[in-house]
């Protein structure tokens, strides 16, 4: 968990870098003093990586994703996306983003909410209809096309917002706790759907989660963060094969990675070891 670990993981990177952060720092000024949300973050994400971010609440995961998405400006360090600045990448519509909160527009029905990015990016109506149907099926929301957001349960809203981000083709997917409000069965289902999609389309995915098994199951690379100030404490390259049946979760290799993640996570907590 020292800097050298991070350096070694850098060394292993091969494919072209999609996201490259160097000495990235971000400080929020607030009424009663500054909050350092990110400090000296160094990270390279390569094309086709599935990167999970895990870390205690408030450690800067969302902030990091928002910085990649050009929703926050870093206060120090550099960040490039596909060799471009974050702003250029955003203008090139390089990514799809699933926010931590659903952020559905209340004046649009669910299907219209999913249509929103398609309208903006100028998809033909027929294509829009086809994609809406496909992604709504994928997240199991068929039958709720014409409902308004406030008529859905929390988990359904979250699934609608996932469908919205999957409806258009972005090479980079930024997902902030997308499955947080979903039950295990749906989660398993969506996990394997996501893996299939990733495998088929060679997308690069940045995925924030609080579930260690989920992180290990999905990722090629797991980034462990710790708070105050938010920094990267460990980057773990997964040695699991790309093809992953659900029962891989019981293999010793899987459990070993999970244990390493859990250790990293625990190290970032103040009440370390207090309740084991």
């Amino acid at each position: 968990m020292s800097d050298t670990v991070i350096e070694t993981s850098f060394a292993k990177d091969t494919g072209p870098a999609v996201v490259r952060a160097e000495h990235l720092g971000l400080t929020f000024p607030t009424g009663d003093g500054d909050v350092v949300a990110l400090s000296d973050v160094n990270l390279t994400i390569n094309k086709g990586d599935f990167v999970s971010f895990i870390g205690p609440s408030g450690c800067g995961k969302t902030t990091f994703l928002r910085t990649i998405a050009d929703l926050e400006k870093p206060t120090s360090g550099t960040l490039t996306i596909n060799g471009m600045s974050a702003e250029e990448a955003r203008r090139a519509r390089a990514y799809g983003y699933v926010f931590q909160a659903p952020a559905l527009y209340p004046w649009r029905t669910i299907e219209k909410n999913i249509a929103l990015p398609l309208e903006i990016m100028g998809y033909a109506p027929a294509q829009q209809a086809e994609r809406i149907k496909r992604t709504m099926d994928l997240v199991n929301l068929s039958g709720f096309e014409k409902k308004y957001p406030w008529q859905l349960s929390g988990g359904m809203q979250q699934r609608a917002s996932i469908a919205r981000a999957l409806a258009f083709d972005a090479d980079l997917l930024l997902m902030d706790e997308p499955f947080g409000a979903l039950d295990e069965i749906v989660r398993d289902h969506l996990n394997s759907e996501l893996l299939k999609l990733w495998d088929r389309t060679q997308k690069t995915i940045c995925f924030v989660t609080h579930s260690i098994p989920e992180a290990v199951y999905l990722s090629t690379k797991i980034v462990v963060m710790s708070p105050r100030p938010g920094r990267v404490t460990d980057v773990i390259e997964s040695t699991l094969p790309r093809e992953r049946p659900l029962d891989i979760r019981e293999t010793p290799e899987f459990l070993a990675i999970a244990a390493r993640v859990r250790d990293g996570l625990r190290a970032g907590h103040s009440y370390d070891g207090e309740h084991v």
Partner: protein
Amino acid sequence: MRSDLSSLQLYLALVAAGTGLAGLLAGLPTLGAAPLLTAFYALATLSLARLVMPWSLWLDLLLALLGAVALIASLPPGAAMPLHHWLALFSAWALAWLFVERLSAAIRRGRLPETGIGLIIPVLFGLALLVIWEVVTRGANVPPVLLPPPSAIWARLTAEVPLLWADFVQTFIKSVIPGYIIGCLAGLAVAIAVDRSPFLKAGVMPIGNFMSALPIIGIAPIMVMWFGFDWQSKAAVVVAMTFFPMLVNTVAGLNAASAIERDLMTTYAASYWQTLMKLRLPAAGPFIFNALKINSTLALIGAIVAEFFGTPVVGMGFRISTGVGRLAIDLVWAEIAVAAVAGSAFYAGVALVERAVTFWHPSVRGGRA
């Protein structure tokens, strides 16, 4: 005590019955003179029976109406009315209020349908105002040149329909409607333009605030000077009047979208116009409708006021100003009544559209607009 009465309702019931009884006692010496009124006193007193037996809310309505009719029928011509008439007025008013309270409670609990029945309440409120007006002006001998009773206004209204219609066309159809449309569109357009460019916003908003605050009354003679005597100058005043509320509200509304809703648009690298059309305008809807509603009444006032400063000899404002000079106050009020009805209908139309368009807003979803 019957438990379905709230404390306010109970209080009203006691007031109604109490004043009824007092009226009965005060009116005893002249009992035979006004049998209808005596009957009302007796029944109002009897309504106390609601404390021990079921008492339909419709009975309260009937009683209130009886009270109103009895009062108006027994108003002494030319002389101030006796004390107990005031008691009757008070009692009938309390009964009407009680009825309204009970009716709306019944609607809220779903015992009565909203549509149709809900309309009774504002109508009754208006009726009550009219009855009080009639009784007070006639009962207290208010000079008709100060305030005529509604009955006189109604008589004048029905007698002058063609005249009123011509005035309505001149003022409402020719001045208000075009002025309103141009003023609101201009306000909306400027708000969007201003919102688009920080430079314009910094430059236009202070000056816009300044211009908009020009009192209409000062604008009216100038507009008449510039655009002539006919409806064009009135429409110009309406434009000037409706512009500001639209500008202020739209600028506020364009900022109403929440941070995360905007972030979403940013992630799509949506163009300015896409963000405007798909997020900021819908989110601004409630604010824009607020302005449209305020403007629907301002526009009419503006046109009428402008007509005070020179017109062809037709128009609601013209009729009102000359009417006061000629002491044809009943005609003035007839004109005002037309203005009020037209303005309210205009407002109601805008409000209906608002409910349909901003159905998603909590203020509409949770109740009435």
